[in-house]
């Protein structure tokens, strides 16, 4: 490491209100094509609910005391938090950074690189909020929500989105090229999509796999929280789930910003 970039990967970056200007740029781009952007989170959960929930659900015994369709519905909301924020801060951020050179243009202004990355993370969290709230709306229409606590899911979506955005940004900071995002997508996101108590109770899994998913898979915690709020089943273990996310999020946010600094400021 060179002397002038010897900042540790965990040193806390200075971020001002200017990060929101970067967020706003991304929001304005999103709003230009909002009809197209709102379409997938509106349509996709319908297929899952009808196909898996009602179709496959006919063969599946209740999971954790819930009808199969009601079991997967809150998980679909949590999955959309993960997908929307993770892909926003991998592929989309990489395109802005590398192909469009948008970051380079912005850091010639009083906005710093740290603020650019923070703005991107805030935008990823916002994408999670927007998309999962639409999925939540679909789930509500299907009558699969049974507690007013569901109102806490959107703020949860922002928090979970921030965590996945930060994790994604760490990969963006170290990826040699855009194709290499296949590695985190298939080795990290896909297993999580399957193994986080999403489509079957994680109690059905072998003990070690259960432990691994509880310790290492952020989606597991998001699904537990989303399900607990949607059906109003509050268990003390939810505090562990929330705590896990609250600890991991600032760590990955700080790490991702420092890794990006290392990549872009030589």
């Amino acid at each position: 490491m060179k002397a002038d970039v010897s900042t540790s990967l965990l040193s806390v970056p200075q971020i001002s209100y200017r990060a929101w200007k970067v967020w706003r740029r991304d929001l304005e781009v999103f709003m230009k094509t909002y009809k197209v952007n709102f379409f997938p989170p509106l349509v996709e959960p319908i297929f899952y609910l009808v196909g898996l929930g009602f179709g496959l659900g006919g063969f599946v015994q209740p999971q954790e005391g819930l009808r199969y369709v009601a079991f997967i519905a809150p998980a679909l909301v949590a999955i959309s938090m993960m997908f929307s924020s993770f892909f926003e801060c991998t592929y989309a951020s990489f395109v802005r950074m590398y192909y469009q050179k948008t970051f380079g243009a912005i850091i010639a202004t009083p906005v710093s690189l740290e603020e650019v990355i923070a703005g991107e993370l805030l935008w990823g969290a916002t994408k999670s909020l927007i998309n999962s709230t639409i999925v939540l709306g679909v789930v509500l229409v299907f009558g699969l929500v049974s507690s007013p606590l569901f109102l806490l899911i959107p703020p949860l979506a922002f928090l979970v989105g921030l965590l996945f955005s930060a994790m994604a940004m760490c990969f963006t900071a170290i990826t040699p090229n855009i194709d290499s995002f296949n590695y985190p997508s298939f080795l990290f996101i896909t297993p999580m999509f399957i193994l986080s108590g999403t489509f079957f109770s994680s109690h059905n899994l072998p003990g070690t796999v259960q432990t691994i998913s509880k310790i290492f898979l952020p989606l597991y915690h998001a699904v537990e929280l989303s399900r607990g709020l949607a059906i109003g089943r509050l268990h003390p273990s939810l505090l562990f789930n929330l705590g896990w996310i609250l600890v991991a999020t600032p760590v990955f946010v700080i790490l991702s910003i420092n890794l990006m600094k290392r990549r872009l400021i030589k």
Partner: protein
Amino acid sequence: MSSEILIKAEGLTKKFDDFLAVDKIDFQVFKGECFGFLGPNGAGKTTTMRMVQCGLPLSAGSLSVSGMYVTESGREIKTMIGVAPQEDNLDPDFTVMHNLVVYARYFDIPKKEATKRAEELLKFVQLDEKKEVLIDELSSGMKRRLILARALINEPQILILDEPTTGLDPQARHLIWEKIRNLQKQEVTIVLTTHYMEEAAQLCDRTVIMDLGKIIEEGKPADLVKKHVGEEVLEVGYDEEVLKFLQDTCPDAKLEIMGDRIQVFTNQTRGIFSQILNKYSFKAAMIRDANLEDVFLKLTGRRLKE
């Protein structure tokens, strides 16, 4: 131009891993002048620019802009400079107008003021007809003009132009030059890099010539030409006999063979010219004005033969 120093570099150095991109350079830019960094690709011009615009940490030396050190006051310095980079980094998701308004926001310029400035700047760079057009639909000359307008949105005291006309056709280039001259009249301090000698000669009050990370010469373009090359250059069609004649009659002259032509750098151009015409009337010989390119070739020694 005043004697107030706006940018001052001392022992400025930038090292990337093992590659020394900028090697202990010193320079000063005065308020209101147009200062040019001239040199081939890879000379270290862009790296120097990026350090001035606080986008790249220094490896050694010091660099101050308007009395503030780039290592300490990046944000303040970035507020007062406008940057037109070499590459196209316009925002392809937005229209021409929206590009300027979004960029103004990064400088905390209120929306109303930003719109007003954007309108004026688009008129200035003759893009007011293209306001609502997306970036992809602009020609490369138009993109360069828009990048210039964007660099002016914060009404900068210092304008950094990194190869403002590279890759443009002559018409587009002259249009950019005209805009730059306009800005000079408004006493904006301009720092530009170029590898076109003509561009430096046309626009710059003073230039430095960079090669391999070092500044190898500094001065007014016309003075540099006079000092190193003289007023005129003699060119003759290549021929073994002529070459031998030249080597014999004027051993002090520098001869350069470029393709099928011999260039003769000497202070007695006209005498040799008439001798050649007398002896070898069939040879295409001509006298032309010396230019910065000649200086550059002479200083860097490229393709030059004694």
